[in-house]
């Protein structure tokens, strides 16, 4: 399968292989995946558990290294970077939203949002950050601590944090996995709106067809391989595609 090249890719992996362990117990989590995540789009990575979707995201984001193949953010080949440069790249060009435990409990909402900027010693674009706070709707909570927020609010703060530094790409790992459907819907809508309004790129790993339906495009992984892509997904279409994995054809 080839990557789409008509739009510039914000992040991409080529012939990505990731092997955990060695010898008889070696597991090929990624088995030659090549995929690009086009800029300005919201892409969802789906697949049954154990398909390698989280591994793909971690390697594409520079949190983990590939056994072979290349991963790029923009034009930067991640395999050429040492730990320090990888850290700086994550700080300056990548945003993250994790499933849970996204916020530093000792920092306020406002401090959590600007954390990557503060770590870089940058002031950042204050208008941008200000606008973000309105988009996520947390202006009245800026000086609260994470423990004082609901799970949905916490994830919205995490989304604002991910976009604060105007990153090339935001990676979200099951961002709604711990939320009820209403809060989850808010967070997904927020991701989608932000992509639309600001032209940022989001890559989201999920196993929930409803969540995937918020994306512009869904890529399907199974057994460490890219098996399909779907434009303009709906929950039903995604669910049907997923069912195909459960009964191998």
């Amino acid at each position: 399968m080839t990557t789409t090249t008509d739009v510039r890719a914000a992040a991409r992996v080529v012939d990505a292989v990731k092997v955990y362990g060695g010898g008889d117990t070696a597991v090929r989590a990624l088995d030659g995946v090549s995929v690009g995540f086009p800029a300005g789009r919201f892409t969802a990575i789906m697949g049954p558990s154990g398909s390698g979707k989280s591994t793909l995201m971690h390697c594409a984001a520079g949190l983990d290294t590939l056994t072979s193949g290349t991963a790029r953010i923009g034009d930067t080949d991640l395999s050429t970077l040492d730990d320090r440069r990888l850290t700086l790249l994550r700080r300056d060009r990548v945003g993250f939203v994790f499933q849970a435990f996204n916020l530093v409990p000792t920092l306020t909402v406002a401090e959590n949002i600007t954390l990557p900027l503060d770590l870089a010693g940058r002031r950042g674009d204050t208008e941008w950050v200000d606008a973000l706070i309105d988009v996520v709707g947390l202006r009245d909570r800026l000086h609260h601590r994470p423990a004082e927020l609901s799970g949905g609010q916490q994830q919205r703060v995490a989304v604002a944090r991910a976009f604060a530094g105007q990153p090339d790409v935001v990676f979200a790992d099951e961002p709604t996995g711990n939320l009820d459907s209403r809060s989850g819907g808010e967070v997904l809508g927020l991701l989608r709106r932000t992509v639309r309004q600001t032209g940022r790129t989001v890559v989201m790993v999920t196993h929930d067809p409803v969540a995937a339906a918020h994306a512009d495009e869904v890529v399907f992984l199974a057994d460490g391989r890219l098996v399909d892509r779907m434009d303009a997904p709906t929950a039903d279409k995604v669910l049907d595609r997923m069912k195909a994995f459960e009964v191998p054809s």
Partner: protein
Amino acid sequence: MNASVRLSASSLRAHKRRFAGTFLAVVLGVAFLTGTLVMGDTLRASFDSMFGNAAGGTDAVVRSADAITTPGESQGVRQPVRADLVRAVERVPGVAAAAPSIQGAGQLVGADGDPIGGQGPPTLAGNWITDPELNPYRLAEGRAPQRSGEVVVNRGAAEKGGLAIGDTTILRTPDPVEVTVVGLATFGGEDGMAQVTFTGMTRADAEKYLTARPGEAATIQVRAGPGVGQRELVDRLTPVLPEGVEAITGQESAAENTDMISSQFLTLFTTFLLVFSGIALLVATFSIHNTFAIVVAQRTRENALLRALGASRRQVTAATLVEAAAVAVTASAAGLAGGIGIAAGLQALFPAIGFPFPEGALVISALSLLLPLAVGVVVCLGSALLPAARAGRTAPLAALRETAVDTSGASRARAVTGTGMLVLALAVTLVGVLLSPSVWLAGAGAVLALASFVVLGPVASATAVRVLGAPLDRLRGVTGVLARRNALRSPKRTAATAGALMIGVAVVSLFTVFGASLKATMDQTVSRSFAGDVAVSAPSFGAGGSGLSPRLAGAVRELPEVDTAVGLGRGVAEVDGEGRALTVTDPAALNRTFDLGTVHGSLDDLGTDGIAVTGSEADKRGLTTGDTTRLTFTDGRSATFTVRAVYGQSELAGDYVITRAAWAPHRTQDSDTLVAVSFRNGVDADAGKAAVEKIAGQYGNPEVQTRDEYAQSSAGGIDMMLTLVYALLALAVLIALLGIANTLTLAVHERTRELGLLRAVGQTRAQLRAMVRWESVLVAAFGTVGGLGLGAFLGWVLVAASDGASDSAFAFALPPVQLTVVALVGLAAGALAGLRPARRASRLDVLRAVAAE
């Protein structure tokens, strides 16, 4: 195995590292304690056997029955006996031999011109007793002295001074005597009686130089014939002895000598060390308590699950206690082994640094094994008691809840209790210091102040960290903010961690402040009451040194540069039945060279029956000028003295002053402790000092010092003492630092996911390390600042209480340089303690940290 034991065993196996800090703290404390006890016992046993060996041939000792003991001295001064009593003793049936023993002070000058010893242990001289059985010293090399001027020296002293057989040197008795070394001696098989130096001369020389009147001896040593026991010998001797003279057995005499060394030196030595191991263990208590508190907090879910599955409170508590007991027992056992190792090491080390340590096996009594073991276990279990109880109280539902942030530390009740205690402490202390001076009241206040600091710690830690950490925000940006907030996270934990360091720093500052105050006091004393230009003093710290020749003052007075030179000698007498030190001098000249404060009456004409007394002693005894008081001297004679003057200041001049003429009939070996010299008007200070030095050279070359030098050298012992105290306190501070490092390591473990998140969103390893390190520095800063404050306060209490409780005025001084050094060392130590946890934290794998449960 029951369930609790099984649980704690598996938990211990799984989390060995968590207890590394606790383990080390207990090991260090117990090792120190064991080492002290074993050392003390070994030294005591060695001295016992040494004196036993040395006095083995002496079956009875005949001596003057009464001794006059002045306050602050353990051994009284005895009047000599008539040496010709030997003849009467020899005629008693059962006596095989008897010999007079003449003893006095005699300090040898080494080959390099410096005196040997004199910095504590006595420097003795005496007659060389020719009967080898009666002489505690044995001739090891050379021969006994036969002609005048020949001496035998104990081998340790000879080695120290670089003297060999055939060498000629000076013996200060304190009049300089030229002597030739003809033999070297040992004492009880050792090179000397500890650090005591001994010079043996012919009997004629000893009588001439060491006694005030010929024909006197300190004691008569008696050896029994075959079949006569020591007790029997004493019984036979007693009837022939004149009144005021007694006989004791050789064993009693040896025991007295051992007791003297034990009480003067060993007891002090071991008590001193025990106090410091107590401080170290107190500090360890904090660290241990903290470790268990954190471990229990971290295990809340696990314990809740156990409770939900049906474990009783008792079982959960027991599991934690069993864990603590296992750590306690293994650590205490390791500490015991370590302590014995320390004692063995010191035994090997002491001779290498020139301190003769009696040989012999280490004495390890049951007490020195059981006590440290018990203390180690009690400290460890006691510290774990509260956390264990808390573990038992875990609600089964806690398994389902997210662990909440601990805010328990800053409760209102705590703030109120702590403040109340602090106010009470201040009140008690101030009453004890200012209103009705009492060391006990002040001490109780000090202990209460310490306790209130511990109670208030968690309340204060939030504010303190916020204030101390304020500059961090600007200096280190978000890293600083994170460090500060982390330190604020659990006020109780921060306070307990800092509390350990606080106690260590408090004790260090207490001694620093007290030492500086003592120095300032000495300085003040000298500058206030010493009106002379130079002082000649023989350094006599403790019982050592032979003092100054009483003829030195006279010789200096003859110099054309000198206006007055007055020598101060020391005598003892009972005043109204209480032993008191007398200053023997020329009172008129004393008044010119020293500022004696307001003088009622006159010191010019005391004569042989006049005495001058300080105001405070006069008040105590209800004496005014013109009253009479009765003095009893060591020779048993009494005389009535008329108070001719009452003076204000006693610091250098002493409480009672009599003339040399009045003292002469009762004198023993004559010596001055200080010669104070004033120059004539217009005499250049350097020229005057040089002239005095030239004369002093002829009298055994004692040190000539200007006023400032004299003040400084008076305080010399304090610095030595402080150095020793700092070395001993280093252990407590080390334990406190281990506590900080351990708490941080546990905190890092606790915050694994958070650290992973920070790394994921772009915190560099260097930033992460800095964050952990600064947290450590902040905690240390809190402990250090608290400790400095507390220590300075306790120092003031100690100084003020001493001031109130004694007649001499104490000055209070806060040494800025030393205290700044203490503060910097505290902060640097904090940074050091943070190194390892920071490194561990920065090595976390980002992915694993984010995924960690």
